[in-house]
C-alpha cells in the first residue's frame, strides 16, 4: 500500500498555489489596466473588435472563414479611416463549441483585452452564457449566425437569419414550385432545430400544406437508417431538414442510397451552406433547395468585390465563405459605421445609431432594425452541378421579434 499522507504535502503546495494565484493576479492587474486604458481613453491606440467564434469542437469548421472575413472587415475599415479616427484590430477567442469555455473566453476578451464590441459566431448556448458577461461589461454584443430567433435583450443585436425570415415566404414558394404539399420535418434536437421546425409547421399549415411527420435526432448522429425508414413510411414529397453540418451530410448520403434522395423528396434546407453541400458531394446534393441570406454564387457587384478582396488577402484556397461568415463581416462593417456616426464606442451610443442603419452588404441591402434584428434579403438556391444557383430572391425580409425597439 502506498498511502501518501496529504498533511505533509501542504508545504509543497504553499509555493505552487501561491505562484498560480499570483500569476492570475498578475493577469488581473494587467487586464484591468489595459481595459480601463483602452476602452475609455479617446486618444491613440487600436480599437479592439472581439470576435468570439468556434475554432475547435463540432462547430470549429466555420471558425477559419469567420476569422478571415473579420480581419478583412477590419482592414477595409482601416483603409477608409478607421473608427473615431483610430485603427481597429480583431482579437479572436475560441469557445471550443462549449458554452462554459465561451463564457470564460468572452470574459477575457471583454475584461483583459478590453474590446470595444463583442461579435459572436457560435452556438446559441454560448450566446446565452456570454450575454450576462457582455451586459455587465457594458459592451455591445452582436450575434451573427443563423439562429432560432425570438431573443430580445437590450445589449444584444442579432443579424443572422431567423426561421421567420428563412421560411415564411420560401415554404409557399417551394410548394408552388414543386406542386407538392406534404412535408416531413427533420431536425437536430436543440433550440435552433426545434424553433425552426416549430416555425415551419406554422407556415406550412398557413399556406395549405400538410406535415406528414416530424423527427428530432440528437446532435452527432451517424446512423440514420431507422429515421430514413420512418420518413419513407410517411412518404412525403417535401423534406425540410434543420440539421447541422456533419449530421446533415451523414443523413443525406444515407438517404440517397436508401432511395430517399432529392428526386424522391424535394429538400428545402435551412443550413445547407456551401461547406455542408460540398461534404455531401454533387451527386447527392443535386437539385436541393436551400434557403439562406447569402450564397457565394450571388451575382452582385458588392459580392464580387467582397470575394475578390477575400481571395486576394487569403489566397484562392482560403476557407469557403458562407452565410455564417458573411454575416459576421456585415456586423463588423455595420458596427464601424454606427460607431463613427455616434462618435463613441459605448454600447448605448452605438445601439442608438445601429437601429435603422442600412449597409450595402455582399448579400444585398441589410437594415439593422430598432427591434435588434436585421431585415435582409433571403435567397432560395438550388444545387446545380456542384454550385448553388439562385432560384428566387426575396428582398427586405423582416424577422419576427419580441422587441418592439
Amino acid at each position, binding site marked *: 500500500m502506498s498511502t501518501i499522507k496529504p498533511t505533509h504535502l501542504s508545504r509543497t503546495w504553499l509555493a505552487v498555489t501561491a505562484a498560480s494565484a499570483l500569476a492570475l493576479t498578475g493577469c488581473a492587474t494587467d487586464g484591468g489596466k489595459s481595459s480601463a486604458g483602452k476602452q475609455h481613453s479617446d486618444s491613440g491606440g487600436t480599437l479592439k473588435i472581439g470576435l468570439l467564434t468556434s475554432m475547435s469542437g463540432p462547430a470549429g469548421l466555420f471558425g477559419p472563414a469567420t476569422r478571415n472575413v473579420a480581419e478583412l472587415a477590419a482592414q477595409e475599415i482601416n483603409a477608409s479611416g478607421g473608427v473615431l479616427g483610430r485603427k481597429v484590430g480583431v482579437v479572436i477567442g475560441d469557445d471550443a463549441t462549449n458554452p462554459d469555455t465561451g463564457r470564460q473566453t468572452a470574459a477575457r476578451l471583454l475584461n483583459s483585452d478590453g474590446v470595444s464590441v463583442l461579435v459572436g459566431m457560435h452556438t446559441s448556448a454560448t450566446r446565452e452564457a456570454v450575454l450576462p458577461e457582455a451586459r455587465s461589461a457594458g459592451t455591445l454584443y452582436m450575434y451573427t449566425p443563423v439562429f432560432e430567433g425570438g431573443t430580445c435583450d437590450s445589449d444584444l443585436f442579432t443579424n443572422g437569419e431567423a426561421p421567420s425570415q428563412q421560411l415564411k415566404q420560401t415554404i409557399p414558394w417551394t410548394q408552388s414550385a414543386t406542386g407538392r404539399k406534404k412535408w416531413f420535418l427533420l431536425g437536430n434536437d436543440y433550440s435552433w432545430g426545434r424553433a425552426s421546425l416549430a416555425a415551419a409547421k406554422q407556415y406550412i399549415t398557413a399556406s395549405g400544406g400538410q406535415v406528414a411527420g416530424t423527427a428530432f435526432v440528437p446532435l452527432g448522429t451517424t446512423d440514420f437508417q*431507422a429515421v430514413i425508414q420512418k420518413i419513407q413510411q410517411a412518404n412525403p414529397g417535401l423534406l425540410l431538414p434543420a440539421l447541422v453540418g456533419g449530421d446533415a451530410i451523414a443523413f443525406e448520403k444515407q438517404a440517397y442510397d436508401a432511395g430517399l434522395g432529392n428526386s424522391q423528396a424535394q429538400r428545402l434546407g435551412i443550413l445547407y451552406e456551401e461547406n455542408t453541400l460540398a461534404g455531401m458531394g454533387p451527386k447527392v446534393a443535386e437539385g436541393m433547395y436551400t434557403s439562406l441570406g447569402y450564397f457565394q454564387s450571388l451575382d452582385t457587384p458588392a459580392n464580387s468585390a467582397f470575394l475578390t478582396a477575400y481571395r486576394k488577402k487569403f489566397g484562392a484556397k482560403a*476557407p469557403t465563405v458562407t452565410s455564417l461568415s458573411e454575416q459576421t463581416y456585415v456586423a463588423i462593417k455595420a458596427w464601424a459605421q454606427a460607431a463613427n456616426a455616434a462618435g463613441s464606442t459605448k454600447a448605448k451610443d452605438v445601439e442608438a445609431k445601429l437601429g435603422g442603419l442600412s449597409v450595402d452588404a455582399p448579400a444585398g441591402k441589410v437594415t439593422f432594425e430598432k427591434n435588434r434584428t436585421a431585415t435582409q434579403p433571403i435567397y432560395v438556391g438550388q444545387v446545380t452541378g456542384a454550385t448553388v444557383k439562385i432560384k428566387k430572391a426575396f428582398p427586405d425580409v423582416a424577422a419576427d421579434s419580441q422587441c418592439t425597439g
Partner: protein
Amino acid sequence: MDQTIALTLGVLSSAAVLALTAVGLSLSFGLMRIINLAHGEFLTIGAYSSVVTADHGLPWGVGLAAAAAVGLGAGALTELLLIRRLYRSPELSILATFGLSIVVRQLIQLGFGKDYRMVANPLPGATKVLGVPFPAYQLLLTAFAVAIVMAVLAALRFTSLGLRVRAVANDAALSETLGVRSARVNLVVFAASAGLAATAGALVAPVTNVQPDMGLDYVFTTFLVVIVAGRRVAPLLIAALGLAAVQNLTTFWTDPLLARLAVLLLAFLAVQVRPSASFRVAP
C-alpha cells in the same frame, strides 16, 4: 411484410457499422485492458487515408488497403511510444489516450484543414433484396463486418498468434514464463486494433461526414458496444445486433431521442445483469 424485411435489413446494417467500428476496441480494451479514448481518432485516420487515395484517383479498394496499412502503422507507433508504458496501470491510459485523441485531431486539422471531405460511394443507390429496395453499400458493409469479426475470431482461436494473445490477456506474467513475449504480442494486438479501426473508418467514410472530429461521433457508441459485449470478442456481433435493434426499432416506432436513452439503458442493464461474464471480480 415488406416493412418487416426493410426493418430487419436496417437493423442488420446498423449492427454491422457498430460491430465494424467496435471490433478494434474490443481487442485493445477487452484483451489489453487499455481504455483507448483515441479509438475514434484511428477511425478518422482511416477515413482520411481513403480521402487521400480517392483524391489521387485511386480506386476504392486501394483506399481500404491504405487505411488498414496506415492504421496498423499508426497503432504500432503509438504502442511503442506510449501505450507500452501504461500496462501497469490501465487507468493511466485514460489520461494518455485523452491527450492523444486531442493531438491527433489537431494534427489532422493542421494537415487537411477543417472542411468536410468527400469520399465517393463505390456502390451508390439502392438494390432489391427480397423485393425490398435497400442501400447496396450498406449490404456491402454488413458483409465486411461479418467477415472481419469472423476473421478476428478465427485468428484468435485457430492461429498460434491467437493462442499467445489469449494467453497474455489471461495472465501476462505466466505466459512470459512459458516463453511468450508479451511485449511483442501487445504490440501486435494494439496495432491490429488501430488497423481495424482505420479500416472501419475507410468503410464508413462514404456514408458519413469526414472531418477531423468525426471520431468523436463514433467513440462513445463503440464503447457502448464493448460494454454490452463484455471483455470478449465473440459476443460482439450479438451485442451490436442487440443495440442496433433497440436503437432502430425505438426510432422507428417512437422517436430517435427515446432510442438514444433506450440504448443507454440496455448498456447499463448489460453491465448490471451479467457482470460475471465481463467485469466481475473473481471471488
